[in-house]
């Protein structure tokens, strides 16, 4: 036990002396969550558009007013000729051009049927798809107004929509579980694999192995401080998401922390495995990045929906622990699930950790004999 504490102490001094890394490790979750929470929103305001109004009648004016009043659009140019919209895309950086044909109003009133044309810049598909939804909603509002003034009841079915779990449609809800996962991987897997690899690289590992300290104490003593750090970060993230972004924790907080600790073990086992097969810090870094970090970003379903992916990638996603952890964390945090609802996720993560741990221990033994 004394040996373990000595190793722990040594590692803590290492961490404390490298203040830059320590600062970055603690600042990273903060910056990530603030970035995701404040700057990354799918809502767009004041998108520049051009409107070519060939009708110039009361209805077309009303439609233009509807666009302006929505707040989503800023009309920067009223070209006389539809061809000018072409130039506006390059010169005025507009995102969409709207052409209202001649006789728009008269057709609308007599034939009940009219058309507008929308030209969108799809080079940024993220922006374009949001703007298209806005345009559709503005136009359908406009239709309703026209119909109301003509005393038609257009839609006799009332539709009420209830947004379950996230009534304000806050995008942070999606990101918080993902950020917790990434931070855990960076701190627990990446940092512990690098510090072990550093001992190998500088040959201090050999020195430690010839001391009477047991191998298991060395490994555990080196990994525990990073687990503590990542738990601290996780609590920080949860704190910010609750106090700054008003995200509720519906489920049991202890269950949530238990889940985090289990995932931490999975990540630490992965880190151990990486360090046991790499000779230098660079090796460890690259293997963790390619083997764990990248798959987590791409295949965990937190940035990109898994439903859309080809079948083979969906299977790949099942192999990595992150997907299961994110599913479980979401269930507990947002849906208020209890242990009965998520025990199978916990089991999967536990099995993954045991397998990884067994594998890395046999790797370390193999090395020692060489």
């Amino acid at each position, binding site marked *: 036990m004394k040996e373990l504490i000595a190793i722990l102490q040594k590692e803590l001094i290492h961490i404390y002396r490298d203040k830059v890394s320590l600062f970055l490790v603690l600042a990273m979750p903060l910056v990530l969550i603030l970035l995701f929470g404040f700057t990354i929103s799918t809502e767009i305001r004041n998108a520049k558009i051009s409107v070519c109004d060939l009708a110039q009648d009361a209805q077309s004016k009303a439609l233009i007013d509807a666009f302006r009043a929505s707040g989503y659009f800023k009309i920067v140019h009223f070209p006389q000729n539809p061809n000018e919209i072409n130039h506006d895309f390059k010169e005025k950086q507009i995102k969409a051009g709207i052409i209202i044909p001649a006789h728009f109003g008269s057709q609308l009133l007599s034939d009940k049927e009219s058309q*507008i044309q929308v030209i*969108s810049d799809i080079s940024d598909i993220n922006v374009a798809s949001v703007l298209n939804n806005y345009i559709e909603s503005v136009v359908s509002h406009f*239709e309703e107004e026209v119909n109301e003034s003509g005393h038609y009841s257009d839609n006799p079915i009332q539709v009420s929509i209830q947004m379950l779990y996230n009534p304000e*449609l806050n995008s942070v809800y999606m990101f918080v579980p993902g950020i917790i996962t990434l931070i855990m991987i960076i701190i627990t897997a990446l940092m512990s694999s690098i510090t072990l690899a550093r001992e190998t690289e500088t040959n201090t590992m050999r020195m430690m192995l010839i001391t009477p300290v047991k191998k298991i104490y060395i490994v555990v003593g080196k990994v525990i401080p990073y687990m503590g750090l990542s738990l601290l970060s996780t609590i920080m993230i949860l704190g910010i998401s609750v106090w700054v972004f008003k995200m509720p924790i519906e489920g049991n907080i202890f269950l949530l922390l238990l889940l985090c600790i289990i995932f931490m073990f999975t990540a630490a086992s992965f880190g151990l495995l990486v360090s046991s097969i790499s000779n230098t810090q660079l090796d460890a870094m690259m293997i963790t990045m390619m083997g764990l970090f990248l798959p987590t970003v*791409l295949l965990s379903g937190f940035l*990109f929906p898994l439903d859309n992916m080809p079948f083979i990638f969906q299977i790949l996603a099942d192999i990595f622990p992150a997907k299961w952890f994110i599913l479980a964390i979401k269930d507990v945090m947002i849906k208020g699930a209890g242990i009965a609802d998520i025990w199978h996720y916990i089991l999967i993560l536990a099995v993954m950790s045991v397998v990884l741990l067994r594998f890395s221990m046999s790797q370390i033994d193999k090395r020692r004999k060489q």
Partner: protein
Amino acid sequence: MRVILMLIKKEFLQVYRNKLLMSILIVAPLVQFVIFPFTADYEIKVVKIGFIDSDHSSLTRQMVEKFTYSPYFINYGFIESRDQGEALMMQDKVDFIIEFPSHFEKDLMNGLSPQLAITANAINSVKAGIGSGYIKNVISSFFNEQKEGLANRSAQPANVSISKVYWYNEQLNYKNLIVPGILVILVTLIGAYVTALNIVREKEIGTIEQMNVSPIKKWHFLLGKMIPFWILGMVEFIIGLLLMKFIFGISVQGSVGALLLCTSVYLLVMLGLGFFISLVSRNQLQAMFIVFFLFVVFVLMSGLFTPTEGMPQWAKYINYANPMSFFMEIIKLIVMKGAGLMDVMKPLITLFVMSVFINSAALLSYSEKKK
């Protein structure tokens, strides 16, 4: 000149002998090109939908059928009760539940405007928003069809249809945005990451001290480090362009020469940044953290994955210091919109100013250290 050539030769030898670095240089672009475009797809294509039908009328059945025909929906089928519905939503078996009240058809025929309750799983806010839009569309088009059937309705409501024309990306394909984005990520990683780690390694194993005591001048050292990685970055970029063309069929719409020029200037910014970071960090771990930290901020704010239009003003100001957002803009302009050199002058000059600034900062701090 001869000194620089020697240094470049040394650097290439080092890269060539370093199996790991070589494999990164070769494998990274391939992996990114194979995995990214297939996984990075935001489009909401699949919405799982379930129904609670308390009416059991022919109308509700027709409506359910209408949803089944729509390519966006996967019909989970009928659900017995609200409780069961919520349990299914908890298990992610359904994303939306549509509930028909009893007497739905009768009320509708009597003009009583019955209410349709939709419950959405809103954890993924985008999916909830877009999905409910899809549902409303299906309902209103269903209703329009029904109305045509009802002959006694003489007063038809006015209707504005929208015809859409998509420019620069006719098929609305995410790959067309993501694949050029990968090129940007690739060049950034080679530039900043590999350079920073390479120089810090020299520092860690002490070979940088040997260089400092040799008659190599400091700008020799700088050039001797930058030129090889600049060449590697350009080679990677060109390989990436070819992969983009032959695997994904995305060809550069604008001037390739302008694109290469812009890339070389952007690489200078990233190399300078990598050099600077290597000077301020003490070991590889630190260097990696700093690069990684900046990289994540750069990518998230560059508009590759999420629109930058929605950012608050203060974030837009911060973004003026983000070289990646300028390069992303250039890539979009040249690759997708077919711009020439003149169209990208403004971001190009910005990148150039950035490269001068960061490289002189690096050089200054290097000579400071050398003393």
